[in-house]
């Protein structure tokens, strides 16, 4: 049985990310997803390396598979993968590529990279858990605001809302990179379909924690995490 693991991987992440990127200049905050992923693995998800295949574990699906350095660093900080793997990103013998492959990386729930696939897989995962009476695990899926351009997301948003898929939380990290923006706001795309939504500062760990654990009964939940505009 997995248990909630509360740790603080924060102090270790800068060093781990540097091993991946070889970049001395940029702080971890250059990675738009790092705070969300850190708060999830430090404080929210009930999953550990020893229980990475436990049916009762929470699932985290990185739909926005591009730029996974923050994800790999957090997985290493939590012991899912050896730190040494970080030194050979996308090398010929590396298990870590520029987009993660679940078959190659322990703890990675889906292979992603092509945008617009994670939310559908998350809906199916949430349905599959429910069908097997696994009512404790929650499915978290992380997307980007530009990723929402892909129409497949809107198939999933409408269906998850219409069927009140209550064990699903989507997180959209919004760095204002969608080419045509989202007039009226991202959250409305979800709430009009029956989701609950919280919009927070994507760098504020307390606010992120409250939002990531702020799902209400009977409805899928959205967290919009605002970060700086993509430079």
């Amino acid at each position, binding site marked *: 049985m997995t248990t909630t693991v509360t740790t603080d991987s924060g102090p270790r992440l800068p060093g781990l990310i540097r091993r991946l990127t070889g970049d001395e200049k940029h702080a971890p905050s250059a990675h738009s997803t790092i705070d969300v992923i850190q708060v999830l693995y430090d404080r929210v998800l009930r999953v550990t390396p020893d229980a990475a295949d436990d*049916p009762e574990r929470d699932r985290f699906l990185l739909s926005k598979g591009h730029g996974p350095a923050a994800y790999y660093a957090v997985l290493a900080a939590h012991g899912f993968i050896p730190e040494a793997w970080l030194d050979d990103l996308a090398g010929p013998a590396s298990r870590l590529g520029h987009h993660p*492959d*679940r*078959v190659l990386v322990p703890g990675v*729930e*889906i*292979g992603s990279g*092509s945008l*617009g*696939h994670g*939310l*559908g*897989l*998350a*809906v*199916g*995962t*949430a*349905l*599959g*858990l*429910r*069908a*097997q009476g*696994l009512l404790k695990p929650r499915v978290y899926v992380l997307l980007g605001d530009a990723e929402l351009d892909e*129409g*497949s997301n809107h*198939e*999933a948003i*409408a*269906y998850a809302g219409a069927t009140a898929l209550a064990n699903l939380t989507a997180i959209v990290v919004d760095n204002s990179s969608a080419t045509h923006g989202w007039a009226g706001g991202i959250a409305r795309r979800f709430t009009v379909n029956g989701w609950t939504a919280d919009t927070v500062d994507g760098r504020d760990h307390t606010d992120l924690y409250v939002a990531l654990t702020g799902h209400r009964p009977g409805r899928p939940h959205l967290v919009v995490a605002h970060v700086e505009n993509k430079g």
Partner: protein
Amino acid sequence: MTAMRDAFIDTTTALLDDDPRTALVLADISAAQFAPAGTRHPDRVFNVGIREQLMIGVAGGLALTGLRPIVHSYATFLVDRTYEQIKLDLDHQGVGAVLVSIGASYDGSAEGRTHQSPGDVALFDSLGHGWTVRVPGHPDEVAPLLRGAATTDDPVYLRLSEQRNARAYPDADRLRVIRQGGTNAPLVLTVGPMLDPTLAATEGMDVTVAYTHTPRPFDTSGLRALAATEVVLVEPYLSGTSSAVVSRAMAEVPHRLLALGVDQTDLRRYGDPADHARWHGLDADGLRRSISAFLGSARG
């Protein structure tokens, strides 16, 4: 007379009752027929609406949790439209599903090109060698193929058609000789519902006619055992789909190959399936003309 689609609906309904691992994902097509199953198993029968990308994504997610999804629509919506979802949400995740199509090739002749998918089997070939492709030629072949698929976690495509042979050969997952020709007689390989028109076309010709409902994996050892120097492929989908498989299997055997099937051209014509069979040269007369010309050309 039971149609393949009815056999699929009956068998899937029974599987949902009997095997708690089974799940069904629909995108409105056949939803009414599965309503009773949905009432009994609301947690395992999903109609996502007209959302085919989501249909495959949901199947991938279900499979990741250990369920066995059966996914169903018209071939063009199930396969052509969702090609990247099949590639990534199933194959790349390392999970399988049972995809069951209707509307094979020109079954939807009166509906036009938008409802036709002669290239579906070729699309699975482009994904690699993981997929088992079943093309039954008779409704009685459907239930055992579907039940077999449901017990595994493998990726399986079951291609149902309204075209059918008079007789079922449920055990023909390997090549089965239906009509034996003389020594060294040319070999005519038929897939699914092409058997009967081919038998009619080759009546009185000295050829061996073999049949299978499972073109992938192709029975290459059976093919080599039956090997002739002249081989004719008759397939109910895009012509030449299995040419590369046959050529590889016979790479070390001097041979000539004629591949017959549905032409790539959008005919922009309606009519019924028999009209399309005739236009594609896949009725008995057309097949006889093509096969006779091919065999005659070698004998000058």
